[in-house]
């Protein structure tokens, strides 16, 4: 970890020391700092707030807002719920994988994209569906998928 970031990390921890229910806000701030939650940072949080590491891990894995691996600038969520599945979600996923050269769950080397398959996003009438950041893209074809992604490049 770079010096500057470790200092900031310590400042976050110190700010919340002894405060009840501080874990989630601390984790949020730490994630803002690093863009994900690195192992060493979590250990420092555990030590500083006296929270067991297993508990921290439990919280981090419970909330989808937290990430344990570095995240790309844009997150692509491809729906693989039942409706989308039937309409060929798998193909779309594979297409994106080959386009970005990464696997489901990974982040591109230039940290532009993180790809993740998810369950039903609630817009089955548009199946197959993906989301890029907050935007929905429905009735996807391979071509549409490619074009959508290019907009964020």
């Amino acid at each position: 970890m770079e010096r500057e970031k470790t200092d900031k990390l310590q400042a976050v921890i110190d700010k919340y020391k002894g405060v009840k229910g501080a874990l989630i806000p601390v984790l949020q701030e730490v994630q803002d700092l690093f863009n994900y939650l690195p192992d060493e940072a979590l250990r420092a949080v555990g030590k500083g707030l006296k929270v067991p590491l297993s508990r921290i891990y439990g919280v981090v894995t419970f909330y989808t807002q937290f990430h344990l691996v570095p995240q790309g600038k844009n997150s692509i969520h491809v729906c693989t719920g039942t409706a989308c599945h039937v309409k060929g979600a798998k193909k779309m996923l594979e297409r994106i994988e080959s386009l970005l050269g990464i696997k489901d769950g990974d982040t591109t080397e230039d940290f532009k994209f993180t790809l993740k398959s998810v369950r039903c996003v609630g817009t089955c009438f548009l199946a197959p569906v993906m989301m890029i950041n907050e935007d929905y893209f429905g009735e996807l074809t391979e071509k549409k998928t490619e074009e959508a992604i290019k907009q964020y490049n």
Partner: protein
Amino acid sequence: MVELTIDGKTVEVEEGTTVFQAAKSLGIKIPHLCYHKHLLPTGACRLCLVEVEGARSLVASCACPVSPGIKVMTNTDRVINARKMVIDLLLSDHPQDCLICEKNGDCKLQNYAYQLGVRSTSFKGERHVYPIDSSNPFIERDYNKCILCGRCVATCATIQRNNVVDFAGRGFETRIATYFDRPMQESNCVFCGQCVGVCPVGALTEKEAKFKGRSWEFSKVTTTCPYCGTGCRFDLNVKDNRIIKVTPSWDAPANQGRLCVKGKFGLDFVNREDRLKTPLVRRNGELQKAGWNEALDLVAKKLSGIKEKHGPDSIGGLCSAKCTNEDNYIFQKFMRAAVGTNNVDHCARLCHASTVAGLATAFGSGAMTNSIDEIAGADCILVTGSNTTENHPVIALKIKEAVNCGAKLLLFDPRSIELADWAHLHLRQRPGTDVAWLNGLMNVIIAEDLHDKDFIRERCENFEAMAETVAKYTPEYVESITGIPADKLREAARIYATAKAASIIYSMGITQHSHGTDNVLCCANLAMLTGNVGKPYSGVNPLRGQNNVQGACDMGGLPNVYPGYQKVADEAVRAKFEKAWGVKLPANPGLTLTEMINAAGDGRLKALYIMGENPMLADPDINHVKEALQSLDFLVCQDIFLTETAALANVVLPAISFAEKDGTFTNTERRVQMVRKAIPPVGESREDWQIITEVSKRMGYKMVFRVPDEMPVRSAVKTAKGYRMAYRIPDLIMAEIAKLTPSYGGISHSRLEKEGGLPWPCPNPTHPGTPYLHGDKFTRGLGLFSAIEFKEPAELPDEEYPYTLTTGRMLYHFHTGSMSRRSKGLDEIVPEGYVEINPADAADLSIEDDQFVKVSSRRGQIDVKAKVTDIPPQGVVFMPFHFAEAAANVLTNPVLDPVAKIPELKVCAVRIEK
């Protein structure tokens, strides 16, 4: 009291009782998965649902407190259907692997599915496929079978307090996980195995027991752990004469089902191939197999010959802190009555001789003043010279429990041990300066008028002399000696003195010094000064190392006392034993262990009989010990393995292990507990007491054991004509002990079996035992203050040897390793010795982690791996002494405490080179 009805039966229970417990008191069994009597109810599984008249929905009985007048039904159709649904749902994501599951027959899910008639699930859906983790040597984790009851999580968090696992993920992804889903060996798991013990299904199992037997094939024998002095009880699970696994005995008084890795997973040494199976006799310089008669005849002939030629005092004996009270009693009786010498001692000399000497002087009795359980109730706990979490792990749980309830922990230890994380104050004294800071605490307490004047006046003597001495130990002066900041010392003194109940816990960090007795006397002074002794929770509590070191001392395995610390020099006492044993007894106290080794070296001692001890690793300055043992005319070793010491013997006699024995161990809290035979003797090995009586008989002293009136006949013995009821000899030996030893007067095997263990003093058959000592008055009458001046350790670092070496134990091994290093799992997890070095020192010496270094002292040199860590302070290095190939005791200083004759194992000067 609250009255309610359950299934039409009326019951009265205390307020706060749960419906589940109330039902249980009526003998009504409610199915349950997440509830466990040692854990707080969580209401997670919903299997324990019951119907309460008038309530809209079913309630979880395990988490529902009773209220007056309610009518509970545990058995209605609605309840049964709800339970069926719970099981049905669980089975929907459960591999029905019962055919080859380790838990088959002992699985709660299987049992309830059977009871409720749920054959398989009616749900179709996704199932988890988790990889099975068998990467550590002890525990196999198969989370495909996990039902998310949370018992393991709660156990690890609220009993073991390690928080290794927790719930992770959400929804379908919910699982039990370590931090980052890593293997357990990469977490802070200490492999106590208690999570395995509470898991209701086959998700957590003992790896080494896999495919070795099903629950109904095991015979279970409740017995006592052979490792440390905590005295944990557990159930040996035996099949085909082998110990397959260890399961908790939840009602055990000292440990309530808790264990450490050694007791839970470290007992496979019992069935090791290299157990001694026949006697060995040295012929042409080589140890060769021999028959029992030949070996016993030879031992008797040699000892008799030496006795005749050089007198009885040319023979010495070491009894054993590992053997039972019965074995030790017989051993010292043999030395005193058959050989005719008081030269009998054992390794207590090396660990707590200074405790026995110091506390006997101050209080009149050299043992823990309180029970283990009372530790949890203290408001202030001063721990010094005890790395409790590693050396007495189950006792450490009580310390953590106390801290959790608000007690203040004061830790005085040079090293940053785990307890430092729990301590209110961690004060790091320079090794060997304990008298100074202890006097400093008393200086502050007196200066600030915090001492208990009534207690001092009514119950103690010699206060003025002590007060005069400590007057000069001001916190500033103490800081200059110990390095402990003066204001911190003041703070510690105030906390200790103002606590309602303060307990001092110490161990070898206090005793193993050339001034060990002084250290102990200072601890006693401090407790008396504040009236912190003679009442529940507060006292002076030396933690004894070996499983039966307390008992071996109690049984008179010491050169100056008979059983029960009755002095050999006291004529009336001697007369009593002469009458009981029918022989004239020697009047002069014998040699101590350390003196015997020296006497062997210079030819005064000709023969040594060693039962279950390994001085070749345990004693200081091993090179000297080896020379001494080799210059003996005759060395007999009686052991379960060919130890480093036995390898030097003229005759080796194979003894049985704890798992093959009946008898008793006395744990560190003075609790006498049963040891029970679980398997037959391995090979031709025999009971220790039996071997000794055979030698004794051949030397012309026959030991006979009388059956006391009213003793029940208690054992079925197989004879040619079938079974015959007979007395077990160890029961009779205990009867003889009780007759001659006032503090054991009321102890008998039949009582122990019924009552589960009794802490001495227990003077008569109806006495319930004594959890804390010195209640109305001290054993010696008045408590005696001693005026003690600080003395430096005998060897200080200098230019040539600039580092201070301190030695000790670590969690995964025990003593000289003759048992733990023969355990597959323990050896796998920690296969070799190491020396801990502070990063700053390592940088000075340009030493890296894991690199081999040479550690040398004025006495010897060893090669060992460096472990660079900030546990020891700068200038201090630490080594565990369990490892023969890197034996710390090659280096240690054999200089002795003048009173207790304990060597200074905790401080010597060393040099470290690449």
